[in-house]
C-alpha cells in the first residue's frame, strides 16, 4: 500500500503539478513620456509610420524581471503597427531604454491624440512552475522548476519557515532535500527580497498552491 501510494504521489507530482503561468501587471513600472523618434516613413497619401524607442522606469524597491510593454490604440486614426517592447530587467528606482522599438501609423489628416494610446506594462515574478519528486519522504529530492529569476543570484528554498538545503541543477531548476525534522509546511523559493508563490507541502500528499 505504501509503495502504491508513493507511485501515485510520484505520478501526480510529475504530471499534475504544472502550474499556469501569468505575467502580472506591476504598479511600480511605467513607460516614460520622453519617446525618441527613430524613423518616419510614408505609408500612404495621409499616413505615416513613426518608430520610437521608449524608456521603462521602475519606481519600486525591487528589481523587475523581463519587463515588457504592449501599446494599444483606441483611435481610428492611429494604428499600432508594432507595439511590443522588451526591456529586460529593470533595477529598483532606475530606468532602461530598450533596444527594441515600437511603431505607430498616424493619419496626418487628423490630430494625434496621445490619450488614445495606452501601455500595458508587465514583468515576470519569481514563480514556482513545477514541482516533482521521487516521493516526498524525508531525505528525498524534490525538484522545483521556476521562472522569473535573476541570473547568477542565489536562490533559497524556504520550507516551513526555514532555509532548506538545496542546489541549482540547471537554468530554472533546483533540488532540495526533504528535511528529516519537518514533514509539512509552506514551501516557496526566494531570491533577495523577491519571494515566489507558495505551496503547502506534506509528505505523502500533493503540493497545494496556497498563494500566488
Amino acid at each position, binding site marked *: 500500500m505504501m509503495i502504491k501510494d508513493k507511485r501515485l504521489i510520484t505520478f501526480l507530482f510529475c504530471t499534475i503539478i504544472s502550474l499556469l503561468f501569468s505575467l502580472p501587471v506591476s504598479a511600480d513600472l511605467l513607460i516614460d*513620456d*520622453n*519617446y525618441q*523618434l527613430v524613423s*518616419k516613413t*510614408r*505609408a*500612404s*497619401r*495621409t499616413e*505615416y509610420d*513613426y518608430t*520610437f524607442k521608449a524608456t521603462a522606469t521602475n519606481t519600486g524597491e525591487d528589481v523587475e524581471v523581463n519587463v515588457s510593454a504592449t501599446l494599444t490604440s483606441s483611435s481610428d486614426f492611429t494604428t499600432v503597427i508594432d507595439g511590443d517592447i522588451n526591456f529586460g530587467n529593470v533595477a529598483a528606482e532606475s530606468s532602461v531604454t530598450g533596444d527594441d522599438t515600437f511603431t*505607430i501609423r*498616424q493619419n*496626418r*489628416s487628423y*490630430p*494625434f491624440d*496621445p490619450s488614445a494610446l495606452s501601455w500595458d506594462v508587465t514583468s515576470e515574478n519569481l514563480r514556482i512552475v513545477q514541482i516533482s519528486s521521487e516521493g516526498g519522504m524525508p531525505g528525498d529530492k524534490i525538484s522545483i522548476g521556476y521562472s522569473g529569476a535573476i541570473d547568477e543570484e542565489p536562490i533559497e528554498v524556504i520550507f516551513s519557515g526555514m532555509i532548506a538545503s538545496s542546489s541549482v541543477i540547471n537554468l530554472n531548476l533546483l533540488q532540495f532535500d526533504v528535511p528529516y525534522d519537518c514533514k509539512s509546511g509552506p514551501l516557496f523559493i526566494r531570491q533577495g527580497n523577491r519571494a515566489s508563490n507558495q505551496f503547502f507541502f506534506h509528505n505523502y500528499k500533493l503540493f497545494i498552491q496556497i498563494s500566488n
Partner: protein
Amino acid sequence: MSSAKAIIITYNATDLGSGLWQYDYYVSDYDFNADYGFQIFFEYGLYENITPVSSPSDWDVIAYDPDVIFGSPDDGAYDALALVDGASLAESFSVQFNWLGTGNPNGQYFEVYDSDYAFVDSGESVPGTAPVPEPTTMVLLGTGLIGLAGYRKKIKKS
C-alpha cells in the same frame, strides 16, 4: 515616369490680414504623370490652419497642420496629387494659413513623390514676387501719405 527635369516651385506670399496669409505656388520645369505628386512642408511652430484654396483642375490637393507625435514635432504639408498624365501646371496652387512666425513667410522645403509615395526629388520654393500687402494696409498707407502731403502743403503755405 515623370520628368527628370529639375523642378522649380515659386511662391507669392500675400498678407490677408489678422495673421492670415496665402501662398500661391507656381510649379514649372516638371511633367507629372498620374499618381505622382508633390508635398510642400509647413514647419512646426510657424504655420497652422493650412487650407487649400485652389489648384489646377488636373490635381487633387489636401493639407494637414503641423503636429506633435509622441513629443516629436512634425511639419504640416500641402499635398498635390496629379490625376492625369501631364497634369496641368498652368494655374497656381493656392493655400491659406495662419502665420505664426515673425516677418514674412519664407521659402519651404518640398518633395516630389511617385505612385508608391516614394521620394523622387526635393527642393526649396523660391519667391516669385515681393509679398503683396493686404488691401486695408494699402488704404491705411495711402491715407497716411495723403495726410502727410496735406500737412506739408499746409506748412509751406504758412
